[in-house]
């Protein structure tokens, strides 16, 4: 009876497309909104993902997320180095500074200062130049998007294209000269400000005058040293907070989840997509069932058990579900692909596909429930009513 069920379903083109469109709409909206949400959340931890060389981040105990800088005393670095189980501990400066562009405008940039000796914690990928070039006088490494975009120089002739910042160019950071010695690629971050890497000591000269400048201490554990244990030891011996990279990521994401309207916003869009999709698909599917009620009645009279009818209706709803899911997820993936090099945050991990699939299954279940109820209660005697 499977073929019969499918032919019944597709026999009414208009309704069939209506149901598919409803489910497509829902699965597209759910996937796309969740992917942007996951993408945005991923951006909040872009810097942490890029800086993976250490095991533990040491910070002030009041720090709530990666961009929440509460500087430490420089002496803390030496205390941490003295703790058992620490292989190395290096300073990282992370702060904002104003770059003065050659057209006179100012652009706020993320400045990352790396340990002068080891340059540990640098960008994940160099496109031009080498990390070691930071040792040249006044050297900085600028991220690709910043170099092409917000830090680009004004067009040569009026109305022309801006000229990207190149190796050898000079910019002014907080009244200090800086020379571009390399271009790197970094993960996009939430605020989308350019990233500038330099040495720790130079970064502190770019920074606004402050008493304390040490943002984080990046710690590598000795081989065989359990990391969680090391974090606990650092906490108890210094009174500072120590987190693994993973747990710092989680802290950061949950900060954004808790203190910004972002999750609610996307949550509403997802729920709306789900409800509208369910309403369209459910109502059309129910109408389809009503249209076919006399045939279902005839099938019942001719010996179709409730189990057979259940299978037919579930097959019908799962078929439109599968088609709508494929189309919706496909469209969402296409949107993500088309926007891959833009500022749009879009991440489609497989878990999202599972979540959307579960939502579509739920829509199918809700959709067929009404129809099943109607068909189960149908008296086969209606077949003789003209």
């Amino acid at each position, binding site marked *: 009876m499977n073929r*019969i069920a499918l032919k*019944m379903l597709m026999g009414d083109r208009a309704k069939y497309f209506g149901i598919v469109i409803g489910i497509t709409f829902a699965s597209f909206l759910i996937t796309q909104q969740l992917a942007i949400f996951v993408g945005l959340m991923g951006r909040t931890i872009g810097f942490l993902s890029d800086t993976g060389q250490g095991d533990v981040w040491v910070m002030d105990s009041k720090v709530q997320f990666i961009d929440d800088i509460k500087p430490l005393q420089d002496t803390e670095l030496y205390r941490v180095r003295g703790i058992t189980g620490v292989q190395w501990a290096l300073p990282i400066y992370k702060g904002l500074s104003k770059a003065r562009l050659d057209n006179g405008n100012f652009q706020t940039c993320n400045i990352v200062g790396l340990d002068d000796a080891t340059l540990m914690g640098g960008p994940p990928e160099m496109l031009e130049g080498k990390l070691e070039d930071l040792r040249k006088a006044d050297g900085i490494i600028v991220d690709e998007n910043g170099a092409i975009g917000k830090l680009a120089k004004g067009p040569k002739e009026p109305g022309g294209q801006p000229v990207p910042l190149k190796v050898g160019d000079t910019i002014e950071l907080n009244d200090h000269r800086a020379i571009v010695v390399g271009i790197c690629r970094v993960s996009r971050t939430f605020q989308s400000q350019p990233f500038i890497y330099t040495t720790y000591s130079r970064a502190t000269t770019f920074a606004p005058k402050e008493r304390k400048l040490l943002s984080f201490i990046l710690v590598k554990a000795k081989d065989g040293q359990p990391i969680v244990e090391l974090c606990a030891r650092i906490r108890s011996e210094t009174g500072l907070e120590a987190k693994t990279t993973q747990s710092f990521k989680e802290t950061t994401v949950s900060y954004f989840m808790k203190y910004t309207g972002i999750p609610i916003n996307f949550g509403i869009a997802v729920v709306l997509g789900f409800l509208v999709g369910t309403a369209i698909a459910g109502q059309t599917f129910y109408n389809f069932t009503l249209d076919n009620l006399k045939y279902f009645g005839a*099938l019942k009279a*001719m*010996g179709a*058990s409730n189990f057979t009818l259940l299978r037919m209706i579930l097959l019908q709803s799962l078929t439109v579900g599968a088609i709508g899911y494929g189309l919706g997820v496909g469209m969402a993936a296409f949107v993500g692909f088309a926007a891959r090099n833009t500022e749009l945050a879009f991440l489609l991990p497989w878990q999202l596909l599972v979540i959307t699939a579960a939502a579509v299954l739920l829509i199918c279940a809700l959709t067929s429930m009404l129809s099943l109820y109607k068909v189960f209660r149908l*008296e086969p*005697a209606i*077949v003789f009513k*003209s």
Partner: protein
Amino acid sequence: MTAKQATATAVTCRNVTKTYGSGDSLVHALRGIDLEVETGELLMLVGPSGCGKTTLISVVAGILDRSGGECSVFGQDFSAMSQSARTRWRGQNIGFVFQAYNLIPSLTAAENAAVPLLLNGMNMREALDRARAMLERVGLGDRAKSLPNQLSGGQMQRVAIARALIHEPRLIVCDEPTSALDHETGHKVLELLREVAVGPDRALVIVSHDQRIFDFADRIARMDDGRIAEITPPKEPIDL
């Protein structure tokens, strides 16, 4: 007339009653029906509209529960069977022809005719082969791939007859099979039913209020207000 030597009782009704609704809206549709239908015969159930014909064949075919009395079909009492057993039994032993044909619009003639076999668990290919053969027998061998909306009313009723016969049921019930057809087409459909549906092991019950086809019956049960008023042979039995 078909050979009657080996007849057996197909349907036995004793004092069958059926009421619809309750209280003020109580309707006595059947007020004590006594009826026997033999295998090999074509019984026509006639009477004015609202007298209970449809109700009676619905009870006999096991798609409606009676309110009282005894009724068995080939020795089976539906009220003693579970819902699912009754559905299965119906699917194997009863063929239906409806006034409104009830062919599924998106299925071809052959697929429609094959439905009872599919419901009995036969695979599609074999069921379609048999359906085509059955369509051949009702004179629609060349329309197996047609959709219902490509067929005339008479052709649709032939497909419905093929569907009612395909699983070789022992009882066939038809409710007003000709009332949607013009006289000549209705006549042809009845001719066809007599020709292909009547058999020594099978009983046929046809509900009609169309005087012009009464001649096709072996016996006529005339109903009035929920009772069988009389059972008679047709006035001028036609020579077959």
